[in-house]
């Protein structure tokens, strides 16, 4: 959709806090509150697009960048004011469960999060290619004016897309809460890695995102092991820079980008 949502990290943070409070107030396990969080985030995304991002659709994309950055600052510092900077985690029963295949030990909650992510990507792929709304989203992304002429309610499609993006974020946030802790600035490193992964693979391409994720994930783990953990982020950036140097539109990006 060609909108860089700088506030994506803050959205991860928000959905993690929702999961946390669902646990601390109602004793909901993160995996149970996951659909709930996804729905709440969808609504937030829909409203956000309606009141905020929509206004910037016709202005240069730099102002969109600024608007979402302002939103991120706002949300992060509000979270800091409301919930303090303490790190909070949910003690889940299966937090320490592991199983092993051969010599490889796998943490149960990480495995669950991994499976959810794969399922989510598949579901999204099916949704975009095989439903009416999904096709409308793809059409709008390709050409806004033409889509509008074909009778697609473009604004509504934008809202739904934004909502879906945040619903996916909500799923990610909720499954992260099974093995990670939450604090107001938790989201940004995740979001930065996510941006790199997407741009590396080529924006708007699901296979690109999967491949980009694999490359960055493996590179980070190997470099943390072989060189030093502090170079982890730098190594992934160097790979990113090197790829973009030779292919400015990402691995799967088209020529017409």
């Amino acid at each position, binding site marked *: 959709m060609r909108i860089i949502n700088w506030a994506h990290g803050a959205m991860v943070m928000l959905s993690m806090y929702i999961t946390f409070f669902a646990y601390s107030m109602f004793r909901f396990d993160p995996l149970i509150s996951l659909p709930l969080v996804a729905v709440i985030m969808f609504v937030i995304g829909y409203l956000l697009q309606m009141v905020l991002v929509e206004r910037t659709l016709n202005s240069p994309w730099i102002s969109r960048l600024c608007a979402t950055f302002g939103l991120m600052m706002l949300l992060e510092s509000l979270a800091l004011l409301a919930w303090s900077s303490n790190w909070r985690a949910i003690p889940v029963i299966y937090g320490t469960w592991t199983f092993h295949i051969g010599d490889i030990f796998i943490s149960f909650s990480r495995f669950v999060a991994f499976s959810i992510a794969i399922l989510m990507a598949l579901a999204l792929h099916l949704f975009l290619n095989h439903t009416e709304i999904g096709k409308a989203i793809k059409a709008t992304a390709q050409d806004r004016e033409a889509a509008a002429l074909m009778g697609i309610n473009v604004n509504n499609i934008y809202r739904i897309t934004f909502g879906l993006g945040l619903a996916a974020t909500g799923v990610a946030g909720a499954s992260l809460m099974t093995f990670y802790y939450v604090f107001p600035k938790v989201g940004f490193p995740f979001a930065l890695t996510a941006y790199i992964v997407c741009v590396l693979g080529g924006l708007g391409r699901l296979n690109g995102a999967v491949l980009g994720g694999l490359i960055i994930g493996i590179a980070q783990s190997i470099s943390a092991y072989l060189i030093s953990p502090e*170079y982890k982020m730098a190594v992934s950036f160097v790979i990113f820079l090197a790829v973009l140097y030779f292919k400015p539109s990402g691995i799967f990006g088209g020529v017409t980008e």
Partner: protein
Amino acid sequence: MILLLLPTFTKNPYILDISITVLLYAFLGNAWNIVGGYCGQASLGHAAYYGIGAYISTILLLKFGISPWIGMMVGAILAGILAIILGYPSLRMKGPYFVFFTIGFAETIRALFLTWKWVEGSRGIIIPFQNNPANFIFFSKIPYYYVVFIFLIIGMLITHSISRSKIGKYSVAIREDETMAEALGINTALYKSYAFAISASLMAIGGTFYAQYVLYIHPNDLMSLNNSVIFMLIAVAGGKGTLFGPIIGSAIIMPLWEYFRSTFGGRFAGLGIVFAGSIILIIGTTAPQGIMGILNKIYKKI
């Protein structure tokens, strides 16, 4: 003119400090504006050049005893060369790809300086204080004020002359329609590289000023992504692609930031950022041309 006389009215170091911050960020926003405003390339990697300028002059001073006045020029030239080397591939990219390439570049440089033992890594470098104008260290804040004021004037003159020259006209043509500019025979990558190099050099000069003013440099203070974003915000809030935009943006954002930080410290420490965030949000959504855009509209009505 009023700005020029400010130190004669007030000796209050707090007000002077805020004024210096405003002028420094106006200078930096102006440097960003050359690439971001006139060329339309939103770089979020400018903090890297800022940091490189600070580090080069400081290392030349501490390890080789070279005055920062000279180190500043060395830093500016090296940052300019680096911008051309890196600029060439990055300027072929468009939109989001370009933004993330510049972020990646700045973050790589920051990680490098954080772990590089020769430049003290994550401990940062403290510049020992000696009151010596030849070494760009002054006892009072007033000389700093005039130095940054002169820097700002020079920076604005450079921007002004660029915008009137061939480079400036070509830059605007590139911003408005890159394909068209290319079709008309403009070597877009070359002119974008020029703009990038000048902008990076100015950034490095700002970095040296910061180092000599604060006398402590650390990769996270100088090269963090937040800094790059602040440069962009100042230019965009004031009005990108305008000469006075960055000054207005800096004059509005920086004092508010400082005021909230000093007034609501402690429990409400985040309030300043809440406020700055809302300003940016409002300007981003309602006034894409920034405050200069609003002023222009009012002016036209009159």
